């Protein structure tokens, strides 16, 4: 594992008003594979990503990317929030949302360049949503909304891609498109982090897994993490094992 292209998380800890959400998490995330973050509800999966990116206050710990604090290199990050965190009645079109991926690269007070517009158009094409460019985001299905957000992430030209529950409530077609893109990004040497709460068949797409339940239970290759003893520790006996139904 080449530490230069990896993220190192050391002693990461998050507390909300005396409730511990993450406790002393230490791990390494590598590029070139898809890393799934799994664990039961309230395990701190989303919190781990938010804490790494500085989106939630951290009580302790440090996160390094290529030897420097990740929080100072957010221009290399593309983040897709949970769909439930977005107000889908916002007056914006698909095109408006994809172009948001170019805001940071465009710089202050500037209009979007033609290069930015081309990249946004290409990203929209990649997720198969070009025909919906002028549609209001509120008129899309859940899967289509997710694909628009993936397009926005692609337009950001990032090195680290963080997706919070991208597979929640989406159709089969979108799932196929999404994993196709994840594999492509991983093969291009990107870091791909995916929070995923369901242990259905989709889990076979992940190369590495991070298993959380407030503390880190296990991390590493999929096979090494999905051992019964790890799963029992994380899910306290109530394992919905990964051949189970995809809720």
């Amino acid at each position: 594992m080449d530490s230069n292209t990896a993220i190192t998380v050391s002693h990461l800890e998050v507390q909300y008003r005396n409730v511990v959400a993450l406790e002393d998490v230490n791990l390494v995330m590598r590029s070139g594979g898809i890393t799934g973050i799994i664990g039961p509800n309230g395990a701190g999966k989303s919190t781990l990503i938010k804490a790494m990116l500085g989106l939630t206050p951290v009580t302790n710990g440090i996160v390094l990317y290529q030897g420097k604090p990740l929080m100072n290199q957010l221009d290399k990050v593309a983040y897709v929030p949970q769909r439930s965190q977005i107000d889908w009645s916002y007056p914006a079109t698909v095109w408006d949302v994809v172009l948001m991926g170019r805001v940071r690269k465009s710089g202050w007070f500037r209009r979007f360049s033609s290069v930015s517009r081309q990249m946004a158009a290409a990203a929209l094409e990649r997720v198969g949503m070009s025909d919906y460019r002028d549609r209001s985001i509120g008129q899309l299905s859940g899967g289509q909304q997710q694909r628009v957000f993936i397009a926005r992430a692609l337009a950001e030209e990032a090195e680290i891609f963080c997706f919070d529950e991208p597979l929640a409530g989406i159709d089969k077609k979108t799932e196929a498109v999404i994993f196709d893109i994840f594999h492509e990004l991983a093969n291009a040497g990107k870091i791909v982090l995916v929070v995923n709460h369901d242990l259905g068949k989709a889990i076979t797409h992940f190369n590495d897994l991070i298993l959380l339940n407030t503390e880190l239970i296990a991390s590493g290759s999929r096979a090494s993490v999905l051992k019964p003893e790890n799963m029992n520790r994380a899910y306290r006996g109530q394992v919905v094992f990964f051949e189970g139904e995809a809720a």
Partner: protein
Amino acid sequence: MLQALIEPLQYSFMQRSLVIAVLVGIVCAIVGSYLMVQRLALLGDAISHSVLPGLAIAFMIGADIFVGAFIAGVLSTVVITFIRTRSPIKEDAAMGIVFSAFFALGITLITIIQKDNKIDLNHFLFGNILGVTAEEVRNTAIISIVVVTVVVLLYKELLFYTFDPLGAQAAGLPVNLLNFGLMVLIALTIVASLTAVGVILVLALLITPGATAYLLVKRLNQMMILGAAIGIVASISGMYISYFFNLPSGPAIVLVTSGFFTLALLFSPSQGILTYPQSSSGVFPVWRELKSLMRIKN
């Protein structure tokens, strides 16, 4: 007819009132759109009520009352944020507490000042558009230009931030600065509108034109432009109505805006209650709406 429309314009007080009404109509609609899309309409109300004590204190110490009002308006948002982030109190309760406290303090101070000075609480509460001076028109014009310029320059950043604050933060945008900037724009807009409509009705000009436009178009920039157009038309027609029928100007403007909103609510081609495609069931839409209202009551 034309003669009747030109008649009020021979009075310079009407010219000044019309200019300030149009300026306020434009800038409130544009800035208010941000409040609406962030579901922060109540914040507009909170800031506008909170400017009163700043105004009073500035008057007492002989400073510019609009600077005092602006500082108090921004301070109220800081206090609201402080309570929300440092205690388990939720945002709406924090706003309610802060703005009623500021408002009560403002009324108390102005009542004390009123005893010895020629200052009228009612002018701040409801505006005094027919009495605006040329200097006030100029100040409002300057603030309006500054606010609109900032919105144009920061349009893409503010769109990203107001739509997806976490995504914007993760992309490295300085979201706290953007949020504070937005609060400053809102406070400036409210201060610029004080003389025209007063602190109580300014919320209507901030929210209603944008909300009306929201029912008709699908992008934020379209919402701002159409909202500003509605604001202009409402301001001008409200002023004329108040002139010809001898009605209070601020309320007349607000009532016209509300009328536009009602029309859009009922007849918007895409979302109107009476025109929305789902009414193709053959049932007369007004009857259908009445029936569903009855059903809720039962």
